[in-house]
């Protein structure tokens, strides 16, 4: 599939914004930047236009599904978006999030243990 490569024209405002903490720096390819963030196991936020380009499983990430959107700056295109998808490093997931399945299993386990007389 042919791909058009168009050199991005950075404005002064965009250059300054790119220097903001955690942002993609001027001239940096989005793919390489994403790989860097993933290597650091940081949370990744991607807007609707960028999220389909990211394969979370390949880099050990898990998409947050219980809260499917967040408001954040897209790590792909550096744009603030109120409908970003967010991805958490798999090993850190249970530290910072719990899923409905886990809580459901805990509730079922509780009921079962009570039935057996010891919580």
């Amino acid at each position, binding site marked *: 599939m042919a791909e058009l490569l168009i050199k991005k024209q950075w404005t002064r405002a965009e250059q300054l914004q790119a220097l903001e903490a955690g942002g993609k720096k001027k001239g940096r390819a989005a793919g390489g930047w994403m790989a860097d963030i993933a290597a650091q*196991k*940081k949370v990744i936020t991607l807007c609707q236009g960028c999220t389909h380009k990211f394969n979370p499983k390949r880099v050990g990430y898990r998409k947050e599904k219980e809260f499917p959107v*967040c408001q954040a700056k897209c790590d792909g295109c550096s744009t603030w978006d109120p409908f970003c998808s967010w991805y958490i490093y798999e090993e850190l997931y*249970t530290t910072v999030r719990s899923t409905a399945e886990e809580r459901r299993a805990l509730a079922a386990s509780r009921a079962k243990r009570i039935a057996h007389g010891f919580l």
Partner: protein
Amino acid sequence: MQYAGCLCGAAPVIKRYKASATGMVAGAIVCAQANGSSGQMIVTAATATANQLGSLLDTGVGPNAPITYSTTQGADEAVYGVIVNPDQMLRVLMVTGATGTALTADTIVTATASGLTTIGGTSVASPDMDQGIVWYLSGANVGRSRTIGSTSSVTATVIVPFAANAIGDTFVYAGLNIGLQGMTLTTSVQNVRSDIAIATGVNATTIDLELNGISDSYVTATLGDCVWCQTT
């Protein structure tokens, strides 16, 4: 600590902030930096906190080298993802002790037919568990909980009676309860200590309790001193 949604049901707002110090751990509450600090945030202390920014989502640890706070020229800047919603709810495991071991179960040593007292082997008056919560792990009251109305030595008295208890029944108590502000964290600042007197420690307010066994009971809390509401 696990992000468990916002009171208003809104989507989480995620920002990236610069660390002012080392010790950033995923799930911890982070606070605005003190005047004159280098970065933008510090991790909460275990026993007190002010000007909370939100909860940390990552550790910033790379596969080869940790991305940590550094003042060395040329070092990577330590930047972390933070959920900043002021009304966020955090689900936290209840533990005992500074290092975070399982809750300590106590055993009924004197049975009471009225169900108004739980008389165990350890003191509930020091640290004082008055207004905290007590729940049974075994016996006729297994799974049931009550607010502690008063304490004296090893006796916790409740106002709404349990069923009659028996010698050997096991129970657990915690210095936490709905609407109480203050919880002491472990040294890792990731879990809540249940063995500390009520309303002590970090400014976080209990909104929910999941009273299960000694290793899988949780408290859900909101931030009580959020910098987005008022700087203190």
